[in-house]
């Protein structure tokens, strides 16, 4: 491609030279009556300087020769021949040709020098912007795609980018055959030595101690292209090392978090599923074995235990299911217009057994608008919060639920008079499997899932939940829901 443009520009150079000389000849013809004809040569000289500055040395020499011939033919006696009558004309012309050659040469050298420095500036600019792009690349994928873009812009040769870390090939064009595994293997293994043997074909992206990736080029590159690729490789290597390191760290963090969750889940399953099961199995087998010997009241008590514990088990399983669904992001909000009073009533109804013997006070503003939410999810969120409140509230204690409309959102406060939550635990109680220890006195411990799920459900609606201290002792769970929904679920 480069060669073609060079040829075209050279051809146009000759055309430009010819046209300039013809133009100057015409002007000279017009000026003949007023100027001595030796001075007319200066006009031709001007033309030659112009051509040398604009085009290459070739057209400049051509312009000199043409000027010489034209002047000789038209403007020296005898006219319209190439003969020269006067000796001084001959001397002038000789001088003209030598001066024009020297000028032309100088001018075209200067032009080349300017072009060179412009190119160098361009290159520097390109490297600079490339280095910026590399610094800002956040992932190794980004590094690779930006590098690919830069290589395509600089050289037009087909190439492959081989990422060692991910065993990944990016080729342009994509049909390009990659070097076979044996060669690659020896490159990865021998590191530098092999690379030097086939220099110009491979460019390595090296970190401090190993080759991270390779650029493989199928054709021999020019020196400047080769230099450019080399620079690109060095810059990209730094960026690639950085992003790979970050990705590794992220992966490790994820793995350890998943591990923690898994072990918490296991202990939760074994503890929270087995505890109610123990009561159920124990009570049922007692009934089966000793029914005749037990009083009516004892029998009833055992049966009540079986029922209560089964319901507890069911709630826990529901929590595990909800958590899994939320954890996997598989929940789609089915928003609908619902009445906050309906939701509250539903939550209270579902918790009627747990809230029994505790005083519930409800205070919902009259002008509450219907809200655009997934009703069952918000109900579940309230169930978990109220369940938590019931657990920390002693029998005979009071739980207060207040809902009101503010200028920007809907607020629901659920207050209890339990032991309260220490400041350093206020954030943690929304973490999965985190449950606050209240000593042995507490018989029914939380599973540490309910509040995390509540938070997830409310957050999915663009709302928030946080813990405040209840001025009269205990805790306030402060829930906010946007008045105008931020997220619309798929309809």
């Amino acid at each position, binding site marked *: 491609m480069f060669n073609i443009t060079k040829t075209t520009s050279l051809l146009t150079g000759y055309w430009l030279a010819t046209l300039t000389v013809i133009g100057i000849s015409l002007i000279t013809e017009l000026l003949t009556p007023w100027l001595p004809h030796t001075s007319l040569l200066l006009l031709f000289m001007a033309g030659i300087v112009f051509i040398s500055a604009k085009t290459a040395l070739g057209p400049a020499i051509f312009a000199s020769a043409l000027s010489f011939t034209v002047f000789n033919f038209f403007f020296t006696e005898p006219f319209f021949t190439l003969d020269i009558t006067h000796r001084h004309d001959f001397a002038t012309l000789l001088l003209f040709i030598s001066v024009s050659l020297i000028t032309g040469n100088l001018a075209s050298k200067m032009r080349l020098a300017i072009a060179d420095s412009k190119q160098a500036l361009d290159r520097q600019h390109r490297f600079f912007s490339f280095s910026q792009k590399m610094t800002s690349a956040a992932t190794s994928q980004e590094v690779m795609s930006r590098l690919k873009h830069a290589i395509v812009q600089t050289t037009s040769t087909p190439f492959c980018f081989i990422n060692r870390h991910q065993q990944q090939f990016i080729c342009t064009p994509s049909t390009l055959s990659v070097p076979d595994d044996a060669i690659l293997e020896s490159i990865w293994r021998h590191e530098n030595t092999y690379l030097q043997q086939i220099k110009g074909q491979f460019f390595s992206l090296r970190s401090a101690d190993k080759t991270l990736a390779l650029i493989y080029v199928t054709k021999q590159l020019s020196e400047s292209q080769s230099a450019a690729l080399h620079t690109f490789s060095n810059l990209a290597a730094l960026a690639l090392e950085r992003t790979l390191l970050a990705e590794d760290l992220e992966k490790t963090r994820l793995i350890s978090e998943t591990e923690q969750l898994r072990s918490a889940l296991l202990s939760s399953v074994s503890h929270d599923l087995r505890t109610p099961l123990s009561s159920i199995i124990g009570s049922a087998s007692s009934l089966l074995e000793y029914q005749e010997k037990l009083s009516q009241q004892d029998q009833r008590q055992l049966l009540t235990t079986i*029922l209560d514990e*089964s319901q507890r088990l*069911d709630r826990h399983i*529901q929590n595990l*299911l909800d958590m899994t669904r939320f954890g996997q992001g598989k929940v789609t909000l*089915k928003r*609908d*217009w*619902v*009445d906050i*009073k*309906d*939701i*509250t*009533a*539903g939550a*209270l109804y579902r918790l009627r057994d747990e809230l029994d013997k505790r005083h519930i006070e*409800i205070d*919902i503003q009259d002008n509450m608008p*219907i809200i655009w939410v*997934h*009703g*069952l999810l918000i*109900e579940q969120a309230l169930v978990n919060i109220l369940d938590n409140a019931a657990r920390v509230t002693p029998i005979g204690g009071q739980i207060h639920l207040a809902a009101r409309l503010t200028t920007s959102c809907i607020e629901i406060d659920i207050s209890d008079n339990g032991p309260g939550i220490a400041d350093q635990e206020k954030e943690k109680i929304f973490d999965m499997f985190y449950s606050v220890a209240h000593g042995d006195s507490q018989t029914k411990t939380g599973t540490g899932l309910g509040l995390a799920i509540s938070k997830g459900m409310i957050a999915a609606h663009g709302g928030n939940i946080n813990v405040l201290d209840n001025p009269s002792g205990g805790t306030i769970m402060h829930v906010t829901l946007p008045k105008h929904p931020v997220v619309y679920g798929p*309809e």
Partner: protein
Amino acid sequence: MNIAAKTILIIEDEAQIRQFLRISLEAQSHTVVIATNASEGLELASKQPVDLIILDLGLPDRDGQQVIKELRKRSQIPIIVLSVRASEDEKVRALDAGANDYVTKPFGISELMARVRALIRINDNQPSTQARIQFDNLTIDTQSHEVWLDNEAIHLSRKEFELLYQLTVTPGRILTHQQLLKIIWGEHFVSETHYLRILVGHLRQKLNDDPMQPRFIITVQGIGYRFKY
């Protein structure tokens, strides 16, 4: 509650659940007929007179929704659907397909018995033929569209009356949002649930019915409404 003994068909593949349903229903002096899968259930339903069907949606041989449609082709026998928790959609589909009510597994027997009682009562009373419907202190005249609460006439708009009428004509039975929207507003409005919410709000206000402690209209979250029986 004194209700005449009925024949109840249970279509359920889980032996344990069949067992406790049978024991409890028989304790209420109903006659229980049992099917362990869909085809057996459909056959039994067509062979002998049945007053009520309890249908599990998760059957081994056929989708429960299909069974409802099959049953509805032939008769209007009340159907109570048993479904696992997870999905509101499944319940709504079952109700829209013609099921009369649902109970979510796991459930307590009292919950199921309440549904059974309500449906049997609806079927016995055939209230659509009555000119006046009476619930505690609420009286509805289906002919003149007049409504009295504590012997005091209350004025309802045409749509409010329609809503109240639809709910009271089958007290205890769930009507889904879609069913109500279709009856009151028409086919094109079945997704405009906020119309319904607002209408229910107005009706409750006029009936002096607190949604926190409903006397008349009960919300079934995500599914519809039912009239308290």
